[in-house]
């Protein structure tokens, strides 16, 4: 046997081993979620006897029951409303701010840029306690506003720098030309920069939506009234109350993650680019 063939054989074996390894890791990542989806179509008894496998008899009433008992209509409304307001607020203040620190010249530009760079790494536990007790005094705890304000503030630094990096890549000449034509700074932001940066605004909107939808620590602390709870906290409460009904827990999980998963399947590239862009130095 010649050496070349042996080498090729070794190459093929390592190729197959690598493929199997990748597939196993894909199974590890995806199957726990696919199984949750399957279990939401099984009876509670079936889920308990054997948590893995296909439904022997497909049942569909889990969804209706869980949706109604869990008060998911209300929770969905709360989450969507909160996310919507936070997205608008973040886009407005971050849009203006990023435009200033990437396009305009002013004395404290360096200070503001540095501020948001440092601000990114401030951990939530450093300010959650005073925020809670101050808002408690102001009567804001256990209202929608508490979360809307806190989420908006927390989302600012990262998205500010994300947008700043993007805007810095747009040639300044375009805006200068608009200003010669008599546009104000705000006009040139709205009419020239905004249309070009539209896809970046969409990325930011998605990132904000997902983090509001998934957030747990703050909404669990600030909201105690059932009817004001967001989906993630409502879900945790629900699993506590109906912990013995496994089918409902699996179904509630699907209901809770469905919007994010759906969005991800359509826009996975935007998700991945946005969520990992923090590692690129601006």
């Amino acid at each position, binding site marked *: 046997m010649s050496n070349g063939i042996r080498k090729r054989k070794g190459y093929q074996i390592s190729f197959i081993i690598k493929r199997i390894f990748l597939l196993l890791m*894909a199974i590890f*990542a995806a199957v*726990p*979620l696919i199984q*949750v989806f399957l279990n939401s179509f099984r009876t509670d008894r079936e889920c*308990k*006897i*054997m*948590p*893995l496998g296909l439904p022997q008899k497909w049942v569909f009433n889990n969804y209706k029951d869980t949706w109604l008992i869990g008060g998911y209509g209300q929770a969905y409304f709360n989450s969507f409303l909160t996310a919507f307001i936070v997205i608008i607020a973040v886009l*407005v*203040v*971050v849009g*203006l701010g990023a*435009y*200033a620190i990437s396009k*305009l010249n*002013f004395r404290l*530009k360096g200070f*503001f840029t540095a501020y948001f760079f440092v*601000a990114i790494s401030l*951990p*939530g*536990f*450093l*300010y959650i*306690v*005073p925020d*809670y*007790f*101050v808002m*408690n005094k102001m009567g804001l705890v256990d209202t929608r506003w508490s979360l809307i*304000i*806190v989420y908006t*503030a*927390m989302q600012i630094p990262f998205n*500010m720098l994300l947008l700043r990096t993007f805007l810095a890549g747009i040639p300044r000449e375009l805006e200068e030309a608009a200003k010669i034509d008599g546009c104000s*700074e*705000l006009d040139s932001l709205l009419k020239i920069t905004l249309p070009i940066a539209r896809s970046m605004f969409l990325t930011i909107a998605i990132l904000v939506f*997902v983090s509001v*939808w*998934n957030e*747990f620590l703050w909404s669990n*602390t600030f909201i105690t009234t059932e009817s004001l709870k967001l989906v*993630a906290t409502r*879900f*945790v409460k629900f699993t506590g109350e109906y912990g013995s009904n*496994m089918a409902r*827990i*699996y179904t509630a*999980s699907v209901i*809770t*993650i469905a919007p994010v998963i759906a969005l991800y399947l359509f826009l*996975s590239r935007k*998700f*991945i680019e946005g*969520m*990992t862009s923090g*590692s690129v*130095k601006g």
Partner: protein
Amino acid sequence: MSSVKKRHVVPYLFIIPAFIIHVSIVTAPAFSTLVMSLFDWNGMGNAKFIGIKNFKEIFQDSIVKLSIMHNIQWLLIFITVPLILGFTVAIIVSQLGRTQMFFRTVYFIPYIISAAVAGKIWTAYMNPYYGLNQVFDKLGWEGLAKVLWLGNPKIALYSVAFVDNWHWWGFILVLFLGALQQVDSTLYEAARVDGASRFQELLHVSIPGIKQTIAFVLIMTIMWSFLTFDYVYIMTNGGPANSTEIMSTYIYKNAFVKYRAGYANALCVIQSGVCVLLYFLQKYISKKGGMEDE
């Protein structure tokens, strides 16, 4: 004259809203945490200045010691397992052609779902009566079928760390993959011309090419290991018998269950202090090791 003035004001008008919101909700309260750590305060009534008494108590608090040990264990797990896994898989995936996108998309899925749901799904799978133990039982694996994944103090922390890993490693993988794709391909060709083996290529081209990402991941892992909260709170809330207690869950209990806001603030200061210390230590080491160019 007035238009010149306007030009100077406009940038500030643009940046001020974001700045004020962030300072009043994040930075100013963060500073007040530092100050309030010197007070005895229940969060509502009057605060009483007690100097460094809170910190003295922290050094005698056995649960704090336990929590920090758990955070260190957490750090040791997360600085090895997801990094090695993410790196290995990223290397293999980066050699693929069209299927690269498919694998990347699948591996990233656990990262986008809420910690609340991921934690509870795995709590259900780890349920001793209705979870995977049923599967092990049917397979005849008696030993595994009897394990109380979240109920046994000896393994509960590892069980939670396993779940957090499940959620986390895909993110690390995507970071590494992105960095590997940006390594100059002519370097690989040059190495091949020089007769380098696959392993030598890895050692002398791939790893140096992504050293900044490696440094970033290390810093992030270190800081985040001392701040982690969601998975532990959701799956075990520090139990059983404090066996999964970490700094964050202990702070949370002090602030919002026992209403010891002053003491909780002092704990926050210690927690952030440890983070900052480790951050600089890591920076120092990676600079010495040539991981960063700065």
